[in-house]
Structures are given as structure tokens and as C-alpha cells.
């Protein structure tokens, strides 16, 4: 049969509600599809058309939520009752943590790109003071004291800004990696359900979020290049570039999630 029929839709809806290991879920879906298609074939043998036969087979099998509750409620920690408030809240928190971690990692990556750009270009071009800025003598003295290799106040300011931003944003990126690893471990331990939410949800949010963030950063960075009213023009551009890259990667993940057939996983 070509195209997506009622049984495909039922199995896909069920796939979104089942929890547990990938292979366990896949086996359940295979078994249920086999059941539904055989039941529909038996109905058709009785003289009804395909649509009626499939509707009857699905109806007799039970609602998606009831079947999912039954299949998930096998005593596995964190896997029971995917529709429960607890399960949904844990899944939402896990997704929020993943998205937050991704944002932090992108911020750290932007800092790394900016640091690399400062080597190729110059620290001043990436982290420097705004055009025409005249720092106070006290600030200059402080920057030169902590950046003794600088040849002047402007360079000391750029060195200091580069050092601070690389350290802070780098630390944020490392925290993001740790948070992502923590969520992964929680998913493996079934504390965070992996299938309670639609697989397109997180990549859709990430794609839109990173694209908007990139657009905002790019606008600010370009205005900063022109107006030169803030520190670190190059850093803004690097962060914008990384946000767009993250949006592109999220878009690819989203595209695959949308197109992925229910039974695409190997068994």
C-alpha cells in the first residue's frame, strides 16, 4: 500500500506516546501494526472497503492513550504512564534543559570563534573599545596593570575584554556541555522520558530560537560596526554566526524528524 493510511496514523500517534528503549518501542510498534493490518484484512475479507476495515481495526484495538498507558506501565522506572502530569513535566523540563544547554554551548562556541578571529585579525578588532571612546586614566592604569604586554591603553582594554569574555563565555559553554550530559544520563536512567513529547518539538524551538537570536545579534553587531557604540564588535558577529549555524543544524534535525518514518529504525 502506498501513502499514509489510518493504521500508519495510529501507529505514528502511538510512537509519540510510548516510552522505553528504542528497540522495545520499535518492537511494540511492529507488533501492533502487524495486528492492525491483519485485523483490517480480516474485515475486508468480510466484504467492507479498506477505509471501513482499518477504522474498525483501530477502533477495536483501543485508544492511543489507553494502549500507550498499558504498554508503558510495565514497572520500568520513569516509563510508566507517559500521559501523567509527572511524566509530561519531566519531559518538558528535560527539553528545556537541552535547549538551555544548546544555547550555552553556542555562546561558548561563539567565544571560541571570536578568540580565533582575534588571533587572525587583532584583539582590538574583535574585543576593542568603541570608536572614539576615551577611557579614564584610572581604567587605563588598571588594564595596563593586568595586561602588561599591551603597548597602550586601547590594546590593554582589548586584551582585558578578550580575556574576560573568553573566560566567562567559555565557562558558560562548559556548563552547557555538562548540562547536556546530565540530561542524557537522566534519559538513559528513564528519569526523563524520551518519547512523551513530539520529536519535532525541540528542534522546531531550537531552529526558530537560534534564527531569531542570530538575527538580533547580527543586527546589533552590524549597527555596532557602523555606530561603534559598544565593546567587542567582532564578538557580537562571532556569536551571531554561531547562532545561525546552530539554527541550520537544528533545521536539519527538524527536517529529519518530520520526514522520518515510524519504522525507519533498524531492527
Amino acid at each position, binding site marked *: 500500500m502506498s501513502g499514509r493510511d489510518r493504521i500508519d496514523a495510529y501507529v505514528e500517534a502511538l510512537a509519540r506516546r510510548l516510552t522505553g528503549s528504542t528497540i522495545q518501542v520499535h518492537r511494540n510498534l*511492529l507488533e501492533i*501494526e502487524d495486528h492492525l493490518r491483519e*485485523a483490517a484484512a480480516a474485515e475486508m475479507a468480510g466484504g467492507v472497503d479498506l477505509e471501513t476495515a482499518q477504522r474498525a481495526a483501530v477502533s*477495536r484495538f*483501543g485508544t492511543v492513550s489507553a494502549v500507550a498507558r498499558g504498554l508503558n506501565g510495565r514497572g520500568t522506572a520513569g516509563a510508566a504512564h507517559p500521559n501523567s502530569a509527572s511524566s509530561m513535566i519531566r519531559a518538558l523540563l528535560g527539553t528545556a534543559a537541552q535547549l538551555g544547554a544548546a544555547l550555552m554551548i553556542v555562546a561558548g562556541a561563539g567565544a571560541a570563534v571570536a578568540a580565533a578571529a582575534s588571533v587572525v585579525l587583532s584583539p582590538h578588532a574583535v574585543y576593542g573599545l568603541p570608536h572614539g571612546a576615551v577611557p579614564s586614566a584610572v581604567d587605563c592604569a588598571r588594564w595596563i596593570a593586568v595586561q602588561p604586554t599591551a603597548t597602550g591603553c586601547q590594546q590593554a582594554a582589548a586584551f582585558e575584554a578578550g580575556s574576560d569574555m573568553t573566560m566567562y563565555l567559555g565557562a558558560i559553554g562548559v556548563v552547557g556541555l555538562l548540562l547536556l550530559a546530565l540530561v542524557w544520563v537522566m534519559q538513559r536512567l528513564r528519569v526523563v522520558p524520551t518519547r512523551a513529547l513530539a520529536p519535532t518539538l525541540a528542534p522546531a524551538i531550537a531552529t526558530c530560537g537560534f534564527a531569531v537570536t542570530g538575527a538580533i545579534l547580527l543586527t546589533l553587531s552590524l549597527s555596532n560596526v557602523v555606530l561603534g557604540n559598544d565593546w567587542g564588535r567582532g564578538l557580537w558577529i562571532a556569536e551571531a554566526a554561531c547562532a545561525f549555524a546552530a539554527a541550520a543544524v537544528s533545521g536539519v534535525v527538524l527536517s529529519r524528524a518530520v520526514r522520518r518514518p515510524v519504522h525507519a529504525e533498524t531492527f
Partner: protein
Amino acid sequence: MKSEWANGNLDALLLGVLEGGAAHGYEVIQRLRNASDGIFDLPEGTVYPSLHRLEKSGALRSSWDTVGGRRRRTYELTPTGSTALQSARTAWDRYSFSVNSVLGANT
């Protein structure tokens, strides 16, 4: 009432229908429906959690093969399942005797 009764004894009923030979889920349900003369007509999806639970307990084992281009899981009774079925029969005999005694069917 009938569905509630069947649900409460579903594990034993499934072991009973599989005593007649290995079967896949759809066939198990058909056997259950036919053997009960249509009395145990459960929502079909409710049977699978019980089949999986029985397999996990060792009362059943399953195998996969390909039929008509589709992957199919077939269940069969294990020696542990046969023992459990005998225990369930003994328990049911005692229970039904007691119920019949109270209802007056044994007088």
C-alpha cells in the same frame, strides 16, 4: 462486568489459549474470543501488556519471523507457563466451587 472479569484473570486466560499452540497477538485474541463464545471481547490493545508481562516473567517466550512482508511476533507457552496454568486452574476450581457453594449450585 464481563470485561472486568476477563481483565482480572487475563494472564490465566492467555496461558490457557496458548496451551493450544504458539500464536501471535491477533490470533491469541481470536482464540480467546472464540473459546469464550464472544464473551471475552476485550479492547485488543489491552492484551499486549499482559503478553509482554508474561514473557518477562518467563511464562511465555516469543520469537519473530516475517509473514507477508511484515515482522510478526509469536508467543508460546514455556514449562514455567504450563506450571502457572495448572496452578491457575487449581485456584479457579477452588474459587468456582466456593462461589457455586454460596450461590447454591452445588446443593
